[in-house]
């Protein structure tokens, strides 16, 4: 089998093949009617750019016809011919070269001696002649030529005189090929920009004319289907798995980047980039001064917002409107229960007062050892000895405190002690005056050997100052008299100069402040500190009365201690009359507490039993809920 070489790639192919198996180029000429040299000419002719001047002169036409093909390629008859073939030349000859130094070949010189053809008007410049017949052109190219210059009729060029040389047969047959379709000329440039753009697009298609004939037979759909690459023997093409295909980069999926559509962009109208499209303008609109937008100050309120505002105003107005409390019934179970307890306590007490009972025995000195110590300190006070009495109980505790206080003051008055009364409570001075007035030794008149120094401010600080300097802490009496000039008080410079200090208070904190601030100084100087307290302060004060060195030498706590001191001193007071009523009310209170506690336990047990019975059906329903 003979082999032939591919004219395109030069590789060997069998002569049976019509196209190269490597580059798919035709191995044999399609048109057998054309000779080889003409086929080569047919291939090389469109590669030369065609220039058509605006004046209608055809530039480079000679180069197309004669410059490409060398003299050696031309046959003798053609070399001697003075005129080109009629079918190929439809335009006037190109102007002479502007370079006089350029050497003109001989054949061109002979050609220039020929008479110039008649010049055509610029608008009627015929299209450049194509070496390929119109029938050989693809339809799209033929249509493109018709679309570009549909109105330009092709004029038959004037007959060229023939020099009588015999024309070969093939050329004669070639002349007989009808040229129905006019060959259109694409101008090199126009002054219309739109036409330039169209020409650029068409210009890209121009090289198609350089394709071989076999390529013109391929349709557009066929060109998209690329033939499979030749597989070398011994290599088996592998198929990529799906997961590997999915892992391919996106760029491989999208072979071409999307082009930006600049059709909608603005054309730059000023600056060095004027006329360009799709670039940033040198004068952006943002920098252009414009009139500021005026906004309305009026608040736009919708109907919904207005209704909400009205509702809010109504709510605020209703908050300020006083609402009457719901009337509660007077006889509620709670009020009845409270009234019953009050009557159970008050009526026995009133009965004992009316009856003036003294049947309940008084407590003994053994049960209240602090009272005996208290009494012993009282009776040791010498006449005209200054004794400090601190009246620090509240007015609400006068019923309890005055029993013991009156017994103490009356006992001191009996002993002609000089009483100095003061208080760290604002109501104390008035209670001190009341106490001095009501003692039995001078009914209706204040006790003469006594001064009321009034109120000592500062709490613990005031007490600390009182320990150091009573003269500065309490310089004047309630009557604005300087007591420290009196004979009984001239020797008083510190708190320890008093022979006895007695504090009467119902508050444990006040008692503790007195003990903490004064007991160290008093203990150091051997001065006794006595306390008269209420029953509620007794548990906190008792520890200060015990121990090897008690800080409080005597305690009179509550009504029992006061009644016992009253009985011990023989002072007639109200304590004994209150003792029976107090004992009875205390017993009734204890019984009521006991009954109430038992009742509470029973009621609580009954209430706890009811929920358990109620929970039982609920427990049955729980599994139902779980099942559901």
């Amino acid at each position, binding site marked *: 089998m003979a082999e032939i070489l591919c004219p395109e790639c030069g590789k060997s192919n069998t002569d049976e093949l019509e196209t190269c198996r490597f580059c798919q180029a035709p191995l044999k000429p399609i048109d057998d009617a054309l000779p080889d040299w003409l086929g080569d000419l047919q291939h090389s002719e469109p590669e030369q750019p065609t220039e058509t001047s605006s004046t209608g002169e055809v530039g480079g036409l000679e180069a197309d016809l004669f410059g490409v093909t060398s003299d050696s390629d031309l046959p003798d008859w053609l070399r001697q011919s003075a005129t080109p073939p009629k079918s190929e030349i439809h335009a006037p000859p190109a102007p002479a070269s502007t370079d006089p130094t350029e050497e003109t070949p001989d054949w061109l010189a002979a050609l220039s001696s020929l008479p110039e053809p008649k010049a055509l008007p610029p608008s009627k410049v015929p299209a450049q002649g194509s070496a390929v017949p119109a029938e050989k052109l693809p339809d799209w190219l033929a249509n493109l030529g018709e679309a570009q210059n549909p109105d330009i009729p092709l004029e038959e060029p004037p007959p060229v005189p023939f020099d009588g040389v015999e024309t070969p047969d093939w050329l004669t047959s070639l002349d007989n090929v009808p040229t129905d379709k006019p060959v259109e000329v694409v101008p090199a440039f126009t002054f219309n920009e739109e036409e330039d753009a169209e020409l650029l697009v068409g210009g890209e298609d121009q090289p198609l004319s350089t394709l071989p004939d076999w390529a013109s037979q391929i349709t557009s759909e066929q060109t998209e289907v690329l033939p499979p690459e030749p597989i070398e023997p011994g290599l088996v093409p592998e198929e990529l798995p799906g997961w590997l295909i999915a892992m391919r980069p996106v760029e491989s999926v999208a072979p071409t980047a999307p082009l930006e559509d600049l059709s909608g962009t603005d054309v730059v109208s000023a600056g060095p980039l004027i006329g360009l499209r799709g670039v940033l303008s040198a004068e952006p609109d943002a920098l252009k001064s414009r009139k500021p937008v005026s906004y309305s100050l009026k608040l736009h309120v919708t109907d919904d917002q207005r209704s909400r505002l009205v509702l809010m105003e109504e709510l605020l107005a209703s908050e300020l409107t006083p609402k009457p409390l719901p009337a509660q019934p*007077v006889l509620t179970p709670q*009020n009845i229960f*409270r*009234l019953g307890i*009050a009557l159970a*306590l*008050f009526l026995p*007490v*009133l009965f004992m*007062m*009316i009856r003036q009972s003294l049947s309940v025995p008084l407590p003994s000195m053994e049960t209240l050892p602090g009272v005996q110590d208290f009494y012993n300190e009282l009776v040791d006070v010498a006449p005209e000895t200054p004794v400090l009495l601190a009246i620090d109980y509240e*007015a*609400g*505790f*006068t*019923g*309890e405190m005055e029993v013991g206080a009156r017994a103490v003051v009356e006992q001191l008055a009996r002993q002609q002690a000089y009483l100095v009364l003061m208080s760290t409570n*604002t*109501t104390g*001075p*008035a209670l001190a005056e009341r106490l001095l007035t009501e003692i039995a030794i001078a009914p209706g008149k204040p006790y003469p050997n006594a001064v009321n120094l*009034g*109120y000592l*401010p500062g*709490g*613990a*600080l005031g007490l*600390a100052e009182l320990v150091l300097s009573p003269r*500065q802490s309490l*310089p*004047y009496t*309630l009557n*604005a008299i300087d007591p420290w000039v009196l004979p009984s008080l001239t020797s008083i410079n510190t708190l320890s100069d008093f022979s006895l200090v007695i504090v009467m208070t119902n508050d444990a904190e006040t008692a503790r*402040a007195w*003990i*903490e*601030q004064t007991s*160290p100084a008093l203990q150091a100087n051997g001065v006794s500190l006595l306390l008269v307290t*209420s*029953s*509620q*302060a*007794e*548990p906190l004060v008792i*520890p*200060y009365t*015990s*121990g*090897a*060195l008690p*800080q409080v030498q005597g305690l009179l706590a*509550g*009504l029992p201690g006061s009644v016992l001191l009253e009985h011990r001193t023989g002072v007639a007071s*109200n304590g004994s009359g*209150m003792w029976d*009523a*107090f004992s009875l*009310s*205390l017993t009734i*209170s204890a019984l009521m507490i006991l009954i109430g506690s038992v009742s509470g336990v029973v009621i609580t047990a009954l209430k706890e039993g009811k929920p358990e019975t109620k929970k039982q059906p609920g427990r049955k329903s729980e599994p139902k809920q779980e099942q559901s």
Partner: protein
Amino acid sequence: MNLEQLSQWADPIGAVIGFVLTLMVLSYVIGDNFLFRIAIHIFIGVASGYAAVIIFYNIFWNQVILPLLLVFLQGAPSGLLVSLAHILPVLLLGGWMLTKASPRLARLGTPVLAFLVGVGAATVIGGALFGTLIPQVAATAGVLDLDAAPDDTGKLVGWFISSIFILVGTVTTLSYFQFGVRPHIEGAIPTRHPFFESMATIGQGFIAITLGVFFAGVLAAALVALVDRARFLWQVIQSIFL
């Protein structure tokens, strides 16, 4: 009607006013009512007014104004200097303290307030330390001092039991307030040592008994007040109608 005749009527008038006010307060038995609220308002107003008068008269007048007046009236320059040395610091600090009444000048009174709080805290803490804590600890530590034990055998047993009771009560009560614990096992809930837990339980019983004693004292004081009011009412009724 002279002053002496008027003073004779003071006690009956005061007794009637007291009688009415007492009934108004006792009307709370039937619930909160108008009479009870009026009586409470009267008591609060009278107590506040009387306190203001006492403070002004007993302190501002007697301790500030009166000493200066006496010095000027007596014409003793030496006494004036002594009085000024005593009064001026009080006036200066007192006036400085008044800046706390103004929101704009409140910061100016901070030094005086700091001085007052500092001195007060030092006084109270010192008094609590030397007046309560140390003496009470010493007394508790000496409850079993045999030198202080009574000679009588019968009293000795009672003294010993009482001392043991005081000691156990003090220790167990303090053990109840021991809240510092640490976990014995990693990740377990921290609990007290079983020994301290049992001690705390005993101390909790002592605390409950102590609170019961406090309540009994309050109840006793209230019952005494009730008895006193009942006696007052009966005395007024007896003096008027009988």
